[in-house]
């Protein structure tokens, strides 16, 4: 991206040089100069389009890991006020509704179990359906699926997937209220019939990680983390159902835009006023999609626990936290000294509530909400803590991952799957995958440097680093 078009406010904050103009609200970037320079110009173009949508409050914002998305950039955050004609955008949520990361901590030290990791990798690979064409063991009729879409992770716990304590550590206690399964198309439900409890493919993964370094000992203690400890991270979302909801509403809202009086700068920003019947219908469907994702991660966590117990009977996996990074939520934020109800779109961005926030689980409330930044196989992941500063800067939002720096086709030209998997094994990272082609596309070198992203996230005041985790086992689709 051409940094000449931006004005630097401080070392990690940038704004579009000519400010708000021509019906466009302000645009803000958070990140270091090298990270911003590596972004595609499309990120700026897309963010400027978001800033033209009705009812925007504050700036359209890009997190340090932003990259070119669908209408909204991935790593985009935007707040809208329903009382000022603010909109809800299907593009601002994304196709993989409520895609997110769930982290579980163990009480195991790597040194005590390292020799058993190959068996654990095999057990996890067998237990977790992953990759193209793979189906889960659970099959649902449309009526049964409606219960999942209403109940989310709470439904899964009621069915025996996990324990009630898990829900304390999931945003919204594992269930978004106001879901409307009737607003989800029959085709979306048909797609999901065999997909509950599956990981998917692409950038989704399940990793066994070791806590390599503690950056903030106080927060780490609150999160139950110490060096050498094993943890598990699961990255996935609402699978085919979420995608079909996104597709259905993107097309129908794009067609309805004129009638709804919304001038779309890009068809993929298809949206409707929050208070319109169309907006409410999409919100109901989106919440159903989010509950599907929350239930899916709850089932995957249960399957993970079962696989662990087969190989490491002494293992106890406790929930650390579950965050969604493709979602729109109503939240109360202070703007110019006044508390307002805003709909915060986080497309590839994580909520980052600071200390004292009542929605943060009680054991973490003094240090802030865990923010999970996933890496890619072979590179680190970070656990950070939300900051009070992020409330004023980004409506309590932070980065979500490393973000790609290279296309899949370029990655395929540069890496060969088998060689990559062998090389990672030599570095002590066990990859289990159904697709060597997929492994090559997901090569760690095809992603931005997650350490730069985490550093920029902290320096921009969006969240502070608590722990760095390295992968030991990675299950890929």
């Amino acid at each position: 991206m051409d940094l000449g078009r931006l004005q630097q406010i401080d070392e990690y904050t940038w704004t579009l040089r000519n400010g708000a103009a021509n019906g466009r609200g302000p645009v803000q970037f958070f990140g270091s100069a090298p990270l911003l320079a590596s972004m595609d110009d499309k990120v700026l173009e897309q963010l400027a389009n978001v800033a033209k949508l009705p009812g925007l409050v504050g700036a359209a914002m890009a997190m340090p890991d932003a990259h070119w998305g669908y209408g909204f950039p991935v790593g985009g955050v935007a707040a809208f006020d329903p009382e000022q004609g603010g909109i809800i955008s299907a593009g601002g949520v994304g196709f993989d509704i409520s895609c997110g990361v769930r982290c579980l901590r163990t009480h195991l030290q790597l040194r005590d179990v390292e020799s058993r990791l190959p068996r654990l990798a095999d057990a996890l690979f067998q237990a977790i359906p992953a990759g193209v064409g793979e189906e889960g063991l659970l099959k649902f009729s449309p009526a049964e699926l409606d219960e999942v879409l209403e109940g989310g992770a709470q439904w899964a716990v009621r069915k025996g997937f996990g324990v009630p304590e898990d829900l304390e550590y999931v945003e919204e206690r594992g269930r978004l209220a106001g879901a409307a399964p009737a607003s989800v198309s029959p085709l979306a439900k048909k797609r999901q019939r065999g997909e509950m409890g599956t990981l998917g493919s692409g950038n989704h993964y399940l990793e066994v990680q070791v806590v390599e370094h503690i950056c903030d000992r106080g927060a780490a203690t609150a999160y139950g983390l110490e060096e050498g400890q094993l943890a598990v991270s699961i990255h996935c979302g609402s699978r085919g159902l979420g995608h079909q909801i996104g597709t259905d509403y993107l097309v129908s809202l794009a067609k309805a835009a004129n009638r709804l009086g919304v001038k779309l700068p890009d068809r993929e920003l298809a949206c409707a006023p929050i208070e319109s019947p169309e907006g409410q219908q999409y919100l109901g469907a989106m919440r159903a999609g989010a509950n599907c994702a929350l239930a899916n991660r709850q089932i995957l966590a249960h399957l993970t626990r079962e696989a662990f117990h087969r190989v490491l009977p002494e293992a106890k996996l406790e929930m650390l936290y579950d965050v969604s990074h493709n979602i729109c939520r109503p939240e109360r934020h202070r703007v110019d000294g006044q508390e307002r109800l805003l709909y915060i779109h986080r497309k590839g961005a994580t909520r980052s509530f600071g200390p004292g926030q009542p929605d943060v689980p009680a054991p973490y409330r003094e240090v802030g909400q865990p923010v999970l930044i996933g890496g890619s196989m072979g590179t680190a992941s970070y656990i950070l803590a939300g900051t009070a500063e992020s409330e004023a800067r980004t409506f309590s939002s932070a980065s979500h991952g490393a973000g790609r720096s290279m296309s899949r086709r370029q990655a395929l030209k540069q890496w060969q799957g088998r060689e990559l998997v062998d090389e990672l094994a030599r570095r002590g990272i066990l990859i289990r995958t159904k697709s060597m082609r997929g492994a090559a596309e997901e090569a760690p070198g095809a992603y931005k440097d997650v350490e730069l992203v985490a550093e920029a996230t902290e320096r921009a005041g969006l969240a502070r680093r608590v722990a760095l985790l390295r992968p030991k086992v990675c299950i890929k689709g």
Partner: protein
Amino acid sequence: MEKSYAYFDHEADVGIIGRGATIEAAFEAAAEATFAIMADLPSIQPAAKVDVTFDEPDPELALVTWLNCLLAEARAAGLALGRFSLRRHNTAWRGEAWGEPWRADLEKGVEVKGATLTMLSVHPADGGWETQCVVDV
């Protein structure tokens, strides 16, 4: 223009291109491009069929709808699809696709979750038609 498909780069996902003598043939080629991301098309046996019908006056939205209907039906039926046929009467589109249930020895790539409106275009080119969009993987 001979029926063919190709790809273009996108930062996070994959851009597909379908070309053909008619708009229908170009749509069929776009479907081949999409499903070839997931599996080796010549290896797929035409043992099962799915039908797709939809009504769409906008040719660009019709391309996205065609691809997404195929992806949804393939997923719902647990099929790898490898052959495609499409007919159009005014705004009514009627398609068929053939494939087989996923098996372990089908070469697997990455799952395509859906076709998007990004870089979406359907236009005449070189005496035929060219279609393109980015698919989400």
